[in-house]
């Protein structure tokens, strides 16, 4: 028996895979969607209306870089006309003050600005571009408007030592919210995992710093952080459960339950040009596949936590065990937790015993641009 289907609350709209940055931990799939296959403005407007009718409250515009779409202003206007909250996550370029004014006038509610480090040099290494100075300018422009500003720092082994500088930079800019998100290991980050995973010691130290900042800034800046789940005892409730809260539309209109679901073998995804968002959400094989508890292995189906973490992340289960229907192996109860522990042992051993010079670090694999 299938559980009753709830309606999604958030639409993640991946408007394009084009991006001026080339981050080594990009959450986009390794196979990027070409520009020629991107949805038109009119199709996005229809998707946004269908999302609102389905009960979605918020549209999160992302990419790639959403600013790479020249019609972003029209798309945001369409989101507001449909009654949605309009949020975008961006690297802050290409953008000037005039275009920002237009986005705000179109109804943009929330501007999330990503940072790759506390200063230009670190940011350049991880993103393959010089963008830090532009981001500082953009933050100042955003603050002149009455819209929400969130700073989003992506943190990992190679920039964790800058955490206190990142907090200081945050205080100087003064947004309403800041997110410190440890890299999660999918897509490009999975390919670069050996260089990105922090050691246990680094992680503990970073959590101490973040907890203190959270306390100190309470009531001024809301501090949120995401821990790398390889170190967790239980898996994260990925996307709030498969097909429960979030619906994601790719640049070409394919509809997915999460960013990374196209790594899963044997899945077919339906497209907004062929069926309505409601039909896809309620009936498509991809959304039914891991919805509810019927698909779960016994360990999860009989677990008290099944309604808290929903068996964890399907993509992670597949990437680490080659079985998308396995318990997420970061779970300490999983028979396959050993896979994760072995990775952590390597990271902690090599970094503790042989700092810097000993073995050369593997080379970064930079994310390119799609055709």
């Amino acid at each position: 028996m299938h559980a009753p289907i709830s309606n999604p609350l958030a639409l993640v709209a991946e408007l394009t895979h084009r991006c001026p940055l080339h981050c080594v931990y990009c959450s986009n799939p390794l196979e990027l969607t070409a520009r020629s296959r991107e949805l038109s403005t009119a199709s996005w407007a229809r998707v946004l209306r269908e999302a609102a009718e389905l009960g979605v409250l918020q549209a999160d515009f992302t990419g790639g870089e959403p600013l790479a779409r020249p019609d972003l202003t029209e798309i945001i206007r369409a989101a507001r006309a449909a009654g949605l909250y309009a949020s975008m996550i961006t690297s802050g370029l290409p953008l000037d003050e005039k275009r920002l004014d237009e986005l705000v006038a179109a109804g943009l509610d929330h501007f999330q600005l990503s940072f790759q480090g506390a200063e230009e040099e670190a940011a350049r290494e991880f993103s393959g571009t010089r963008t830090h100075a532009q981001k500082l300018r953009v933050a100042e422009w955003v603050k002149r408007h009455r819209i929400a500003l969130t700073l989003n720092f992506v943190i990992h082994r190679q920039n964790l030592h800058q955490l206190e500088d990142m907090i200081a930079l945050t205080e100087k800019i003064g947004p309403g919210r800041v997110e410190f998100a440890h890299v999660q290991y999918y897509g490009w980050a999975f390919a670069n995992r050996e260089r990105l995973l922090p050691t246990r010691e680094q992680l503990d130290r970073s959590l101490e710093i973040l907890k203190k900042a959270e306390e100190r800034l309470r009531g001024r800046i809301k501090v949120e952080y995401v821990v790398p789940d390889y170190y967790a005892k239980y898996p994260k409730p990925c996307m709030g459960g498969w097909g429960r809260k979030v619906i994601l539309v790719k640049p070409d209109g394919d509809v997915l339950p999460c960013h990374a679901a196209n790594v899963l073998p044997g899945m077919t995804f339906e497209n907004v040009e062929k069926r309505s968002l409601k039909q896809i959400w309620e009936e498509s094989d991809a959304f039914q596949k891991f919805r509810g508890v019927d698909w779960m292995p016994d360990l999860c189906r009989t677990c008290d936590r099944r309604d808290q973490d929903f068996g964890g992340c399907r993509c992670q289960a597949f990437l680490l065990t080659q079985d998308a229907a396995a318990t997420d192996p970061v779970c300490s109860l999983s028979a396959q937790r050993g896979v994760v522990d072995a990775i952590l042992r390597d990271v902690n051993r090599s970094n503790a015993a042989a700092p810097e010079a000993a073995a050369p670090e593997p080379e970064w694999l930079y994310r390119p641009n799609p055709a």
Partner: protein
Amino acid sequence: MTPELTKRPRLAPGCRLNEKSQPSRVLLMPERALRLNGPSLEIVERCDGSHTIQQIVADLQKLYSKAEPQKVQQDILGYLERLQEQRALDFE
């Protein structure tokens, strides 16, 4: 920290109520939406930067005249404080 009664709460930048025409009213904010009903909606609708907390308390005490007035004030102060910590409100 409990806010002073003379402060005027105002929804923070990027936080707003959804349209009146929608079936249920929610407070929309970055990465979150808060369902509002009865008293919470009455309170948030008055967080416009012109009502003082004192005025909001007086209004709600009138609307919910069967409730203990002191308790109404306490609940409102607690609610406003939580919204402010979520950065959904500024006290002006």
